[in-house]
């Protein structure tokens, strides 16, 4: 301790505060004059404190994680209860489904039901189509070598995409349902009424020639119809949507603007040949009328 008198010390004590105020003002001025030095001092302190801050931030993160975990656990408990009730419900439905399947099988057996053949299919990658006579068509890397034939049906992941129009040994061109050359017989799922779905090079093909007493309903499912013999019945295409009153279109299920994979099904429709009936005036085979113009066109070209 520096030997000073009490009076002296009290005087010094009184001086400390003004001195410190002056010192801080000096620091303010010095900091303004030499900003680099001030920044350096700041960074040194920040560097020293960085581990501490890191520790606090990690602690905060951990607390937040625990908090979210707890909340998640609460949510999971309610979710679990909901799932259990749903599971009970579904178990009941499962029993119903099993008994219905058995009943169905029994009925089919009683009726001597002829089972439908399971269709053969190949899956191929879609490559963009640059040429060709169609505006909306894609090229598939699967051809006659893999069993793809003209007239086969191409399905995307969740709906009809189009049909095979030309085949090479290792590639096939598929006319999409949105092309202006595409005219498909379709069936409206709710009313079982038939119509024609005609592409117009827009993403939404139009519905035409539907019966005036069974108009398409907004949101109704549209499936293929087996009317012309080109498609098996019941392949999903899309839903009805009215762009304007009196102008129904189909919103396809398949995302036709960016197809990547397509399954090409051979439903064996061509093999179904109606037996000759004496006295029956033979109409042109519906499938052949669909494909003939194309073949002549190709033959000429």
């Amino acid at each position, binding site marked *: *301790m520096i*030997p000073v*008198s*009490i009076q002296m010390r009290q005087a010094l004590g009184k001086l*400390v*505060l003004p001195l*410190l*105020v002056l*010192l*801080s*003002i*000096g*620091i*303010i*001025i*010095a*900091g*303004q004059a030499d900003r680099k030095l*001030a920044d350096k*001092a*700041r960074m040194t*302190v*920040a560097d020293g*404190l960085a581990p*501490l*801050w890191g520790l*606090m*931030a990690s602690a*905060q993160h951990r607390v937040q994680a625990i908090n979210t975990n707890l909340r998640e656990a609460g949510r999971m408990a309610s979710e679990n209860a909901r799932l259990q009730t749903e599971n009970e419900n579904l178990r009941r439905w499962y029993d119903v489904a099993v008994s219905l399947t058995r009943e169905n099988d029994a009925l089919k057996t009683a009726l001597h039901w002829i089972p439908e053949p399971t269709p053969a299919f190949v899956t191929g990658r879609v490559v963009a189509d640059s040429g060709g006579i169609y505006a909306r068509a894609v090229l598939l890397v699967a051809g006659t070598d893999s069993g793809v034939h003209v007239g086969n049906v191409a399905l995307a992941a969740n709906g009809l995409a189009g049909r095979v129009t030309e085949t090479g040994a290792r590639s096939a061109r598929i006319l999409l349902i949105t092309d202006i050359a595409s005219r498909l017989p379709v069936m409206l799922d709710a009313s079982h009424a038939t119509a024609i779905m005609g592409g117009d090079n827009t993403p939404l093909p139009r519905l035409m020639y539907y019966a005036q007493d069974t108009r398409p309903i907004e949101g109704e499912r549209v499936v293929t119809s087996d009317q012309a013999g080109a498609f098996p019945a019941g392949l999903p295409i899309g839903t009805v949507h009215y762009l304007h009153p009196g102008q129904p279109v189909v919103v396809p299920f398949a995302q036709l603007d960016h197809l990547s994979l397509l399954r090409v099904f051979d439903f064996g429709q061509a093999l179904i040949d109606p037996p000759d009936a004496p006295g029956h005036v033979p109409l042109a085979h519906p499938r052949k009328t669909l494909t003939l113009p194309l073949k002549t066109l190709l033959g000429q070209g």
Partner: protein
Amino acid sequence: MMPDPSMSAWEPEIRPRQTVWQRLDHGARRLLPSIFIALIIVFFSAPLNIPGAAELLPAIVIATIFFWSFWRPTGMSGVAVFLLGLFMDLVGFTPLGVSAFILLLVHGVAFYSRFGLMRLNFLLVWGVFALVAAGACLLQWGLACLFRLAVLDIAPALFEALLTIGVYPPLSALFSWVLNKLDEKEDP
């Protein structure tokens, strides 16, 4: 008997010599507010995304310094206030020395008026503190304007002043409790 002529005679010898433990204890008691403020500064400058942290930090620091400066100046000396202000400047983004300057002024006001303040009841002390806090925030705003050479928006300064005034009663209650505890320990 002649008084001892050595210089140690000037030391007050009313109390017996302290043991090491007692000294540590006293030191800790004196440093308690400063350590509290230092921890608060570190806590609020950490990247924790606390809403209003930029305004809450000076509010708590000003309230704490005011309280200890007039109730227990030994626990909050001018040097400690100066160092804490400088630390706050270094950690935060205020110009170097500004916080030290403002906190020293707050400390000075509380320190020199402590005998008057102690006689007042809490509400009046709070009123005085409100004036001091508003002055401090306005001073900070004025200095910021001076450094930028432009008139800045006064709304943040007012918000900070209100926050400072609002944060005083709970902190005051907390520190009163701490003081009571310390005093209980001192004279059992």
